[in-house]
């Protein structure tokens, strides 16, 4: 029974947080609602990152390429067929004539993300450590380069416009909830436990017969699916997309959210995605001036990025395992788990010399 309560917290915590954000968002003005939707969509992508990075302990800069591919595919295939021949005259025939609904495009986004992740994963998951990080970064660079300059598969360097907007508050909240559910279900599978074992001690995991490659590939594919799903939500949120929107900046922001929240737990990913998003929105608003009670706060343009960067550096120096300590929701209230978590901390981070 005790275990079940822990599971309820583990899944319920993130879902409740999402519902709360959506509820608060529904009471806001339309302009502010857009920010809330953006936070939820970004959180979906962060959860996608968590599924691979958090569970495997391998750094990946490549997930945003899955977001990019899915966002462009979903955007192109749902945009009006009539305008495609004028805005994207060189498009492949099947891309130029196929039209799907927004709901179908979300599924397509997830599928494309998964397939792309699987294919790159087959090659990349043989690597570890920094080599893996650099190789996934190479994937991001290649994806960006191809999307920006190959006119047969998209609008090239121009903006893809007139994508039907359908990611409202409820859709983004449900989407984020689906991502949480998928991540939750996955982290209780045998496959994920084996992967986590390899994260804690790769040699020991290999010693007991874990195929680290296969388990990483599974996580990478699921992570790609969630990222792709997030990408499709993203394009239907904005109504337009440009390749630079799904590149280094988004990679940085989402990674920062994950590590600040705590990359080792689903709760950490959700709190990081939403919390960091709220701070981000607040700072961007402050650049245009906000009223805090009787105080009028206004900061110079560009300051928000500096503060966010500094904030992230400070959090990681003071709390290397993120603000949640990489624990699941309410996990620390159980003293037994608490002592275990602390012991893990010691093992993970080598002692200061």
């Amino acid at each position, binding site marked *: 029974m005790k275990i079940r309560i822990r599971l309820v917290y583990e899944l319920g915590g993130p879902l409740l947080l999402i519902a709360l954000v959506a509820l608060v968002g529904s009471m806001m003005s339309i302009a502010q609602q857009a920010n809330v939707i953006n936070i939820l969509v970004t959180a979906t992508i962060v959860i996608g990152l968590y599924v691979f990075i958090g569970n495997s302990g391998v750094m990946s800069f490549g997930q945003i390429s899955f977001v990019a591919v899915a966002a462009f595919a979903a955007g192109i295939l749902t945009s009006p067929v009539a305008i495609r021949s004028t805005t994207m005259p060189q498009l492949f025939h099947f891309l130029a004539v196929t039209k799907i609904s927004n709901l179908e495009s979300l599924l397509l986004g997830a599928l494309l993300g998964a397939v792309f992740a699987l294919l790159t994963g087959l090659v990349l998951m043989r*690597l570890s450590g920094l080599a893996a990080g650099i190789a996934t970064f190479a994937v991001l660079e290649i994806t960006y380069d191809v999307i920006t*300059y190959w006119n047969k598969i998209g609008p090239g360097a121009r903006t893809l416009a007139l994508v039907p907007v359908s990611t409202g508050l409820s859709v983004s909240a449900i989407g984020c909830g689906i991502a949480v559910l998928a991540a939750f279900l996955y982290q209780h599978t045998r496959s994920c436990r084996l992967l986590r074992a390899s994260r804690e001690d790769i040699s020991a995991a290999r010693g007991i017969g874990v195929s680290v490659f296969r388990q990483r590939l599974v996580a990478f594919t699921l992570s790609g699916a969630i990222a792709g799903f997030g990408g499709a939500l993203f394009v239907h949120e904005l109504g337009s997309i440009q390749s630079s929107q799904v590149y280094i900046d988004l990679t940085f922001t989402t990674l920062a959210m994950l*590590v600040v929240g705590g990359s080792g737990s689903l709760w950490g990913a959700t709190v990081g995605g939403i919390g960091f998003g709220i701070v981000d929105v607040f700072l961007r608003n402050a650049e245009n001036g906000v009223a805090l009670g009787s105080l009028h706060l206004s900061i110079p343009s560009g300051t928000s990025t500096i503060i966010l960067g500094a904030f992230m550096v400070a959090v990681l120096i003071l709390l290397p395992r993120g603000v949640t300590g990489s624990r699941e929701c309410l996990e620390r209230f159980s003293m037994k788990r608490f002592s275990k978590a602390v012991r893990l901390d010691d093992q993970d981070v080598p002692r200061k010399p």
Partner: protein
Amino acid sequence: MSALGDLVNAISLGVIYAVVAVSVGLVFGVLRQVNLAQGEIIAFGAYSLWLTRTWPIVLSFLLCCLICIGMSLAMQIAIFRPLRGASALTTLIVTFGLSYALEAVWLMVFGPNGQPVSRLSILNNTVLGGHVDIRWVTFAEIGIGGLFFVLLLTVLYRTKVGAMMRATAEDYKTARLIGVRIEQVVTVAFVFGGLSAAIVAILATVQTPLVTPDFGFNLIVVALVGVVLGGIDSLGKATAGGFVVGFVNSLLGAVIPEQQLVFLPTLTFLFVILVLLLRPAGLFVPNRASVERV
């Protein structure tokens, strides 16, 4: 452009990336950590050249060196000391964040369109004129880069602190046990990191005079790719890796047709993935060596 010209230019670009790679390799050697914010030291050095554009050239370069070394040491104290013992990936992300924040600072202070630095533009003149397009800057790069390596090797192999650095890179714990002063070693590594940044700032601004906020980041990313490609465990291999990436990038740029040039990053990074697959621990590291050290 002639084949000889292409080759010499590729070598000079390789040297620039090798100098950047040295700074990454030095810090990794003693601390097992990656400094992605090294690029911002280069950027600030380049901006300092713009700020002091009316000064005598020697003073301007001197100040650039001082600023880069100072900034490097400041990073060591503010970021790397508290993170001592953290994993390479944690520092990679922290310095990524720092780099991102500093880029926003450059954007605010120096504007998005970049500032022109033209202190040594005379070096852009071609050497022979006519058929072979080799510019003086190429020789400056090879010469100054070479001098820097000689200085570095002298310190590493002919001084006591150099021996301590090599010992630390070989085995951190044992080095400490036998009385190596780690703080001193780390400080020297960061001083060289700053110096290399200043050299890159001075040389790179001759080839690309426009200093934009992402000036340093673009350099460090390619150099870091080179370092991992070469083998981050050893300074020599890391430097060679930096050289290879710069060299291949420049050569590919000369070989592929003009209208396909936009796909140059794709080709370069495909090359990177291919090398990492065949040699996961690095281009110059035998496959038998452990991959899991990082």
